């Protein structure tokens, strides 16, 4: 297997330095690529640049109890605490914390804001020192491989030679698979949830709709909207609304909203949000723009589109996991049509083909793709059992 082969295609040139604009958030910040710039898959060199990350729990003496949580497209490093911008609960607060499924009394949990993100890791809204202006679309294209390469530098900075687990849902699952494939010796077990080894044509299509919605907003201005403090909020909100539908399921929408009307007794023969579902989506769009940068949305969706683990192996997935010592646990959800069970099963078949250790469960739920973020007792029970079994085999001593 090729390890860390960021042999880019083409230009190298000067390293791109990134000056952070977000510096007042809670958590840790780390400057990377200062001495040796990081080579991106695109061939460009990045550094120095900043990544932000958050940790929970205590790293034990032999540094063997670390769990890296990889966040999804619109997630961030605030896994298990109130979000510093929105004040809402952390996105995995019901799963990660003292006494919970990912027990921070036992494990040291790390979550890194992805490259191209907008919560303190280098991204398009940071300053390009060459121009003194924010990058916008001059920020280099980032891939899942690049995100994981940056996370690896954080993990090494923390002195951790092997993560006990890497876990993530959706785009987090892509990063988890990338970790297991590229740095197998650094991962004891990998738990990709509601994921895929490649982004499907349908999913690329949905992302393109979202990007076009952003780009069609006149305020987007070719990505150069930062100076006027007037972001393409309508475009980003529409992108979020369209995407949000893909995270749910027909039956979940029906159960939750049906054709119920919003604060009214009858339809109004107009284009106001008559239906609850419309009102709900508008609210999702509005609240999203408060915390997310439109250009980051473009970059991160593109990273997902470009993800295809089998691409370097002639479209053959098993070699991506050849001789893998990693213990895998894949989890999918029955009503998830964005990352359907068939995608997880494809990975399972590839792992079986190289006789890797793999567990795979499909959880029955009507919550769609979002199920990995919700209260799903069966999912929690399975995850907790898998982690306990792996900790047993790893002979992991409790940190507490």
């Amino acid at each position: 297997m090729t390890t860390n082969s960021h042999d880019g295609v083409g230009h190298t040139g000067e390293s791109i330095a990134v000056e952070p604009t977000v510096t007042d958030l809670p958590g840790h910040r780390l400057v990377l690529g200062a001495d040796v710039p990081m080579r991106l898959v695109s061939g460009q060199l990045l550094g120095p640049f900043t990544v932000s990350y958050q940790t929970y729990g205590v790293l034990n003496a032999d540094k063997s109890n670390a769990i890296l949580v990889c966040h999804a497209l619109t997630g961030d490093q605030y896994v298990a605490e109130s979000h510093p911008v929105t004040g809402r609960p952390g996105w995995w607060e019901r799963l990660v914390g003292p006494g919970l499924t990912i027990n921070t009394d036992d494990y040291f949990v790390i979550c890194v804001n992805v490259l191209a993100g907008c919560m303190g890791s280098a991204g398009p809204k940071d300053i390009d020192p060459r121009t003194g202006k924010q990058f916008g679309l001059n920020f280099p294209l980032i891939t899942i491989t690049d995100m994981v390469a940056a996370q690896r530098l954080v993990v090494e900075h923390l002195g951790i030679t092997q993560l006990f687990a890497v876990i993530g849902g959706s785009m987090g699952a892509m990063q988890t698979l990338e970790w297991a494939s590229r740095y197998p010796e650094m991962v004891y077990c990998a738990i990709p949830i509601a994921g895929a080894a490649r982004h499907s044509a349908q999913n690329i299509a949905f992302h393109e709709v979202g990007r076009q919605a952003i780009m069609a907003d006149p305020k987007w201005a070719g990505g150069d909207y930062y100076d006027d403090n007037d972001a393409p909020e309508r475009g980003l909100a529409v992108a979020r609304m369209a995407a949000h539908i893909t995270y749910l399921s027909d039956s979940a929408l029906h159960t939750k909203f049906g054709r119920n009307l919003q604060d009214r007794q009858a339809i109004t023969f107009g284009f106001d949000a008559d239906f609850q579902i419309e009102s709900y989506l508008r609210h999702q769009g509005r609240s999203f723009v408060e915390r997310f940068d439109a250009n980051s949305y473009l970059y991160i969706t593109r990273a997902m589109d470009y993800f295809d683990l089998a691409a370097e192996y002639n479209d053959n997935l098993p070699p991506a996991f050849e001789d893998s010592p990693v213990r895998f646990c894949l989890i999918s959800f029955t009503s998830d049509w964005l990352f359907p069970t068939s995608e997880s099963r494809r990975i399972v078949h590839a792992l079986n083909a190289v006789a890797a250790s793999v567990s795979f469960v499909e959880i029955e739920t009507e919550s769609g793709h979002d199920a990995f973020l919700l209260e799903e007792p069966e999912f929690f029970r399975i995850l907790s059992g898998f982690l306990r079994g792996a900790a047993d085999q790893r002979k992991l001593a409790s940190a507490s």
Partner: protein
Amino acid sequence: MTPTETNNAARIRIDQQLIAEMITPGSRVLDVGCGDGILLDLLVHDRQVDGRGIELSQEGVNGCVSRGLAVVQGDAQTDLHNYPDNAFDYVILSQTLPAIFDVKGVLGEMLRIGRCAVVSFPNFGYWRIRSVLAFRGRSPNSESLPYTWYESPNIRFFTLTDFTDLLAELGLKTERIVTIDGHGKANTRGRIGHWSNLLTEQAVFVITRK
């Protein structure tokens, strides 16, 4: 971390107990149709094997994974071909063969991906079964055949002799046969004759390629 519960000794079947004793500690094992994972759990914890499982029922799979076992949802008849040659020392098929449509195919795949196949099954030639059919005129039930005819997942009803004939036809080598009589007493046998076919309620075979 809390220790994994391994106290399933009371629920383990006699054929599973016999199979566990046949498996070399530390070996690589695939349990095909591993059910709730009792045998796999025993093998992993007491015999320190590198154990994997395939199970058709999602309920069984979820139970296994939540106990920390490496089990995937899958079908013996369609999913064994994903595994590479000689990936395992032992491929186990306990009490599942009667429910298999493509018996030859599955046995062949087991011996492609594993060095040894370990197969346990109920003997349809057991005298009690013969007598229920002969004298009561009804489809037999027994402890090792606990289903009514209309609910049984079993589609293949075969005897010890049938099975040894099939192994001969396939040119496979029988390394070991352990028969279990109606009292749960196990006997190691060199070959299957008329009497052992009559007195055996279930059997465990260890099979290799010639």
